[in-house]
C-alpha cells in the first residue's frame, strides 16, 4: 500500500471517532486537509519544490501517526529569560493554563479547549493563513493534528514579555504533528519564541503546521531556534497572514537536526504591511537544511525584507529557495531579499535560488544570492596580524552569522545564541 493511503486510513479512522461526538468545524477543516493531502500526495523525487530534499523517503521510515511511545527529554535553553514560559510534549501544552495566571488579554491554551470553550472564534482564524492545497506536509499535519496550541492576544493589548514555548519532550517514534495558532488581534502586539532542544540520538520526526495572524495594526515577532539532534527530522510549515498596517517578523535559526525543511509562507493581505523574514542555519556532518520561503504580495504599499544566511560544511547540504510574488495590483511594493552562504568543504553543497515573479510595474525589488568560501583577503588580513588560521576563520564565521542573531530583540536569548554560535563554529573552524 502507498504511504499516503496508509496515513489517510489512519487519519480518517481518527476523524470518524472524533466526529461521532463533536462534529465541529475544526474536524471539518481536518477532513478538507486530508482531501488536499490525498490529491497532492507526498512530493515525489520529481517534485520541483522538494528536488533537493528527499523528505518523502524519511516519512517511509516512520510511517505511523502513532507517537504514543517513548518520549525523548531534550535539553532546554533560556529557561531563565524573563518571559511567559510553557513546556510542551509533542508540541502540546503539558497542562492546562490556570485562568488568571496570564497577563490580561493573553490567552494560551490547547486548541481543543479553546474550541470547546468557544470564547474565541477559532473558525474565523483556523485555515485563514493556510491553504490546504499549498503543501502536502502542511496539509498532512493539518489533517493529522489531534490538538495544538492557541496563543491569542486581544485587540489593543501589548504583551511586553515574550511567550516562550520550550518544545522539551518529543516522541522517539511516529510522526509528531502538532498545530500552533497565533492570533494578534487589531493593534495588539506579541512576541513568540520557540525552542527545540537537543534530542541527542533520538529520532524525532516533527511535521508541524503553524498559522500566525497579525490583524490590522498588530505586531507579531517570532523566533524559532531548532537544535534537535542528528537523527531528528523537522518539517516546519509556517503560514502567515497579515491584515493592513500590520507588522510581522520571524527569524528561523536552525542549528541542529538531521533533515530540516522550513516552509515559510507569507501573505500580507492588506496595505502598508511590513514583513521581515530572517534565517540562519549551520549545517555540518550529514545534516540537510532546506529553507523555502514565499512572500505573496497581494496588496499595494507593503514592504518585505528577507535575509537568510547559511554555513555549510563537511558533507552537509544547504538549500535556499526564496520566492517573491508581486501580484498585478500590488503597486509600490518594496521587497528585498538576500541570501548568503558560506561553503567550507568541497564535499558540502548549497543550492540557492531566488525566484522573483513581478506583475506590477511600480515596485522596488532586489535580490542577491551569494555562495562562496571564506574571503581569502579577509583571512590574510587577520593572519597578517598574527592571528592563527583557526581563530581567524572563527572570527569571520561568527561575524557572518551574527548579523542574523543581531536581529533577535530579547537580549538574553541573543546572548544564548551568540554563545551557541561560538561553540558550534569553534568546532567548525578548527
Amino acid at each position: 500500500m502507498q504511504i499516503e493511503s496508509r496515513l489517510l486510513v489512519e487519519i480518517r479512522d481518527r476523524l470518524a471517532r472524533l466526529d461521532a461526538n463533536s462534529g465541529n468545524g475544526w474536524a471539518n477543516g481536518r477532513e478538507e486537509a486530508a482531501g488536499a493531502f490525498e490529491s497532492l500526495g507526498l512530493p515525489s523525487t520529481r517534485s520541483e519544490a522538494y528536488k533537493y530534499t528527499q523528505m518523502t523517503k524519511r516519512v517511509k521510515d516512520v510511517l505511523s501517526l502513532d507517537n504514543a511511545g517513548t518520549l525523548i527529554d531534550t535539553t532546554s535553553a533560556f529557561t531563565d529569560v524573563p518571559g511567559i514560559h510553557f513546556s510542551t510534549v509533542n508540541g502540546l501544552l503539558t497542562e492546562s493554563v490556570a485562568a488568571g495566571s496570564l497577563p490580561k488579554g493573553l490567552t494560551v491554551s490547547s486548541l481543543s479547549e479553546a474550541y470547546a470553550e468557544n470564547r474565541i472564534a477559532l473558525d474565523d482564524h483556523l485555515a485563514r493563513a493556510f491553504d490546504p492545497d499549498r503543501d502536502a506536509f502542511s496539509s498532512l499535519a493539518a489533517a493529522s493534528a489531534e490538538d495544538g496550541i492557541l496563543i491569542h492576544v486581544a485587540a489593543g493589548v501589548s504583551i511586553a514579555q515574550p511567550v516562550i514555548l520550550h518544545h522539551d519532550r518529543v516522541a522517539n517514534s511516529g510522526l509528531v504533528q502538532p498545530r500552533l495558532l497565533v492570533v494578534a488581534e487589531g493593534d495588539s502586539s506579541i512576541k513568540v519564541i520557540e525552542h527545540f532542544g537537543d534530542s541527542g540520538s533520538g529520532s524525532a520526526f516533527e511535521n508541524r503546521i503553524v498559522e500566525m495572524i497579525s490583524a490590522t495594526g498588530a505586531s507579531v515577532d517570532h523566533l524559532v531556534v531548532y537544535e534537535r539532534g542528528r537523527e531528528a527530522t523537522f518539517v516546519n510549515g509556517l503560514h502567515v497572514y497579515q491584515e493592513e498596517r500590520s507588522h510581522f517578523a520571524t527569524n528561523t535559526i536552525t542549528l541542529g537536526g538531521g533533515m530540516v525543511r522550513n516552509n515559510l509562507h507569507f501573505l500580507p493581505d492588506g496595505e502598508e504591511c511590513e514583513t521581515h523574514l530572517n534565517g540562519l542555519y549551520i549545517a555540518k556532518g550529514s545534516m540537510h537544511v532546506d529553507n523555502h520561503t514565499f512572500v505573496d504580495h497581494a496588496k499595494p504599499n507593503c514592504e518585505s525584507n528577507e535575509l537568510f544566511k547559511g554555513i555549510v560544511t563537511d558533507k552537509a547540504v544547504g538549500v535556499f529557495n526564496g520566492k517573491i510574488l508581486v501580484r498585478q495590483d500590488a503597486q509600490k511594493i518594496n521587497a528585498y531579499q538576500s541570501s548568503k552562504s558560506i561553503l567550507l568543504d568541497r564535499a558540502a553543497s548549497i543550492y540557492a535560488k531566488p525566484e522573483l515573479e513581478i506583475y506590477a510595474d511600480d515596485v522596488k525589488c532586489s535580490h542577491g544570492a551569494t555562495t562562496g568560501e571564506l574571503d581569502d583577503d579577509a583571512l590574510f588580513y587577520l593572519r597578517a596580524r598574527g592571528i592563527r588560521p583557526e581563530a581567524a576563520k572563527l572570527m569571520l564565521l561568527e561575524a557572518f552569522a551574527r548579523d542574523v542573531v543581531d536581529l533577535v530583540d530579547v537580549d538574553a536569548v541573543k546572548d544564548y545564541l551568540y554563545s551557541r554560535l561560538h561553540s558550534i563554529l569553534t568546532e567548525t573552524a578548527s
Partner: protein
Amino acid sequence: MLTINNLHVSIEEEQKEILKGLNLEVKPGEVHAIMGPNGSGKSTLASVLAGRDGYEVTEGSVTFDGEDLLELEADERAREGLFLAFQYPVELPGVSMANFLKQAVNSVREHRGQDVLSAGDFLKLMKEKAAIVSLDPSLKARAVNEGFSGGEKKRSEIFQLALLDPKLAILDETDSGLDIDALRIVADGVNGLRNENRSFVLITHYQRLLDYIVPDFVHVLVDGRIVLSGGKELALQLEEKGYDWIKDEQTQTA
C-alpha cells in the same frame, strides 16, 4: 634583519613572473624607501614578504632575523615581528575592532612569552597607541575598517603597527589618500616608532613622505628588479625626472 637574495616570484595561476631577481638588505634600525612605477611589483614584494597565498617563489631566498622567512605561514611571520601596513586594508563587517585587536595583540604577546593583557591594561594600551596617530577613539567601537575613510584606514594601520610592536614594518603606500595634516601626523607617528632595533620598508610614490620620514636608503623598483639604489637625494631626483631616464639607462646598459 631582512635579506632578500635574487628573489623571483610568479603569480601561481598565471605563470607570470612579477619579481625577477630582487635583492635587498635591511639592517636593524634602518629605513628603506622603495619607489617605482605602477605595476612594477612593489605590493607583490610586500605580499610575498607577509606570506600571502597565490605567489610562487621560483628562485632566491628571504631571511628574516636569521630564519628562512618563506618557510613560515603568514600568521607566524606576524608573530615573529613582521608587520605589513596594507595598501588597501580589508573591511571586515561584523568583526569588531576591539575583538580583532585583542586577538592580534594577545597572539603576538603570547608568542613572545608575555602575559595576556587584562581588559583594563588592553584598553590603556589601545588608548596610548591610538593617540600616536590621533585615531578617532570611536573607530575602535566599530567593525574593522568598515566604512572608515581612506585616511582613517591608513591611520588605523599605523595604530596597529604601534600595538603589535614589530621588528620590521613594511608600509605599502600608507601616504596615499592622506591629507596634508594626516600625512604629518602619520609620519610623526612612524618617526616616534623608529628605534635602533626596528626597521622600516616604506613603499611610496611621493617624495613628500620622505621629507617627513627621512630614509637611510631609497631604491627604485622597475619591472621586478631594484635597478637603482641611493640615499634620500634619489627621491628628489625621481620627483623631478620621473622614471623614464632610469628605464632608458636600463635599456642602454642591457
